């Protein structure tokens, strides 16, 4: 009895028909993640380790069919699941609501309007949140025919390059600089679709932990200059390693191509969120196997091409090709009267030239 009193009262919430018990204060997104990846809404801007993130991309919108057991009215609008706290008896519709799917399809389309779609040359391809989101909810074609906004590539600091054209303005790198580093020198300038991530008057980002903005970026807007264009993610082999670092925890993932460490990143959990932020020395300047103590191969559980079978056609969702074919499929109009049609006779020599040669086993 005494034990039960100490425990906080758990709240029951039903997401897509699956019931889960969570602690008070949990958001819908966290509750859904507790159930598993099949139910968890996509998140392009929300990043659990960063305080204040979320609510901007609108990818995680869900429908609340019943607010709570006390007040079972549905919420009038779709809500951002990353910020909405669960109530006891709440019923949430995620993938099961056509309204939610429709809104998400819209969000993908909006995010891709000004995105260059240069995945074939982008370092992020293969571990890109936007790529995965578009794969799940996007269309094969675009309805946008105007010019896309473009920016020049810019070097911000010695190790980081900013491709603003690819940015989806999730603000994660802004929060990272605010909360991980001791001084933020970059932020969002201008407004509307002219907004851009920029530094104050060409100032370089110069901080021991600045490299973390590369890891938190959901797309390929912030890239590692020591790794740019060197390889593709799916050709590399991730290995967990650590070292004695005076600045950070030193727990990292090394990405090998053959015997060579071509990239060092922080470790990420199954939701692509960094578990421990690492310093620039570990990330950019320590690329010899002899510097590290190898722990063993990294288990990739997040949604990525490097996780097995991410893009296989027979996984839960219909494949990209199938959906593309379904969208383009038109039944053949076969009501026409064919009785009067005659096959036009082709001159026999046109067949004669091809057929005997093809049938003849001897050349």
């Amino acid at each position, binding site marked *: 009895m005494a034990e039960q009193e100490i425990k906080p009262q758990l709240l029951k919430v039903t997401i897509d028909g699956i019931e889960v018990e969570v602690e008070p204060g949990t958001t819908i997104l966290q509750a859904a993640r507790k159930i598993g990846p099949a139910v968890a809404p996509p998140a392009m801007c929300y990043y659990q380790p960063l305080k204040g993130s979320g609510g901007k991309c609108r990818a995680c919108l869900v429908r609340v069919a019943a607010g709570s057991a006390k007040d079972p009215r549905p919420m009038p609008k779709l809500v951002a699941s990353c910020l909405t706290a669960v109530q006891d008896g709440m019923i949430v519709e995620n993938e099961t609501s056509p309204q939610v799917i429709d809104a998400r399809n819209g969000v993908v389309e909006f995010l891709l309007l000004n995105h260059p779609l240069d995945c074939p040359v982008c370092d992020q391809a293969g571990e890109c949140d936007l790529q995965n989101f578009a794969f799940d909810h996007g269309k094969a074609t675009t309805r946008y025919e105007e010019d896309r906004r473009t920016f020049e590539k810019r070097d911000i600091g010695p190790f980081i390059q900013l491709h603003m054209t690819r940015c989806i*303005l999730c*603000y994660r790198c802004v929060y990272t600089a605010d909360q991980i580093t001791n001084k933020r020198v970059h932020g969002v300038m201008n*407004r509307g679709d002219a907004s851009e991530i920029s530094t104050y008057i060409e100032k370089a980002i110069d901080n021991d932990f600045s490299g973390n903005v590369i890891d938190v970026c959901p797309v390929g807007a912030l890239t590692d200059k020591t790794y740019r264009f060197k390889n593709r993610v799916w050709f590399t082999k991730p290995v967990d390693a650590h070292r004695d670092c005076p600045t950070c925890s030193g727990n990292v993932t090394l990405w090998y191509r053959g015997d060579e460490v071509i990239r060092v990143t922080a470790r990420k959990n199954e939701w692509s969120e960094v578990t421990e932020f690492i310093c620039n020395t570990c990330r950019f300047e320590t690329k010899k196997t002899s510097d590290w103590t190898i722990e063993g191969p990294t288990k990739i559980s997040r949604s990525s091409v490097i996780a097995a079978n991410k893009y296989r056609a027979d996984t839960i969702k219909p494949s990209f090709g199938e959906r593309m074919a379904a969208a383009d499929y038109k039944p053949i109009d076969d009501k026409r009267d064919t009785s009067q049609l005659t096959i036009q006779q082709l001159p026999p020599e046109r067949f004669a030239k091809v057929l005997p040669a093809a049938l003849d086993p001897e050349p």
Partner: protein
Amino acid sequence: MATKILTEHINVPGIETFDVYRKQGGYTAVEKAIKTMTPEAIVEEVKKAGVRGRGGAGFPMGMKWSFLAKPEGVPRYLVCNADESEPGTFKDHYLMKNIPHLLIEGMIISSFALGANKSFIYVRGELMYVIHILEKAIAEATAKGFLGKNILGSGYDLELVVQPGGGAYICGEETALLESLEGKRGNPRNKPPFPAVKGLYQSPTVVNNVESIATTAWIINNGGDAYAGVGIGRSTGTKLISASGHINKPGVYEIELGVPVEDFIYADEWCGGIRPGHKFKALVAGGSSVPILPANLALTLANGEKRLMSYESLSDGGFATGTMLGSGGFIVFDETSCIVRNTWNFSRFYHHESCGQCSPCREGTGWMEKVLHRIEHGHGHQQDIDLLVDVAKKIEGNTICPLGDAAAWPVASAIRHFRDEFQWHIDNPAEATQPGAVYRGDMALV
């Protein structure tokens, strides 16, 4: 003669000075409130009056006040939203410019009722001269002991600060306004928490429109019941309407809510009718954000009754046949106006003013503007109309703040009611792009 609550003395010469305003019965409400009433009694009186937020949403002001959290040891703030930048709305500007003391009197009473010792008036940056008028009025009121320390010997202190904004439309959204007031980028906050719980500097805050706050002086003098007696049903009191467009007498008019739309347009007391030789085509009743209505639906409800200037009557029929009172930006169009061009113009405004924080609004407003630009300039495709409807639908309700809705509604409603006109632009690009060309097809003109 209709009741005038805000503009009764507005034409008195010198009303912008303290002495003239005082002679016309000004600041008696402050004396009455601070000397004889408790803050709770004032809130009760405002609740009884049933004033609805005049900034556009129409949320009851008394209820907003009673939601204010009152934790111990945390300051509370009152912020007056004078960032009026809705196209078609210019009532707050008119009020502040002509009778600044009415707003200051309202601010003192409201701050006292809410227990705020520091209150802000956030004025849009373009109105610098109005800021000077307000600052002068505040200095006068402070010199006479109505502001500052120990007001009228009651022990109540109030500091009133006028803060110029940067001229961004988004800062009229209450949480973006608070961010801007704190010195940050004017991005709307995610709600909840609402400002009543965590507002300015994470403290409980009430944000009210200029016109809403200005009504409190009259309410205190005459009682909440007297205010509720004016108007119709749940739309109590009077409303300032900024009338513009193809009417004979554009200007700001104070009307009792419940006046028929037809009377408001045609009566000599108000707009004085459509300009001579022209016919009434369409109406935007409450500022550019609200759905546009064709003439016949603007004047009558779907069931044939006259439409009235009230929150309920204007929104009768939902968005299928109704609109909203909004902030009272009343724009009248005659048959020479091109709805496509107008919709493009509104859309261009929202594209320019979107803060860029959440994706549907950031990308969608620009997309709609570009498609409308294309149609207007003779490059429209057949599928563009459906595309606009679909984009508007995907923005509406999916954004952080109401700017997304405000951008989607004018486009969706223009297509709902004037689809033929859009189609004509797409089908006849050569004709439609001639200077001054307007669709003259089948439509209800009055």
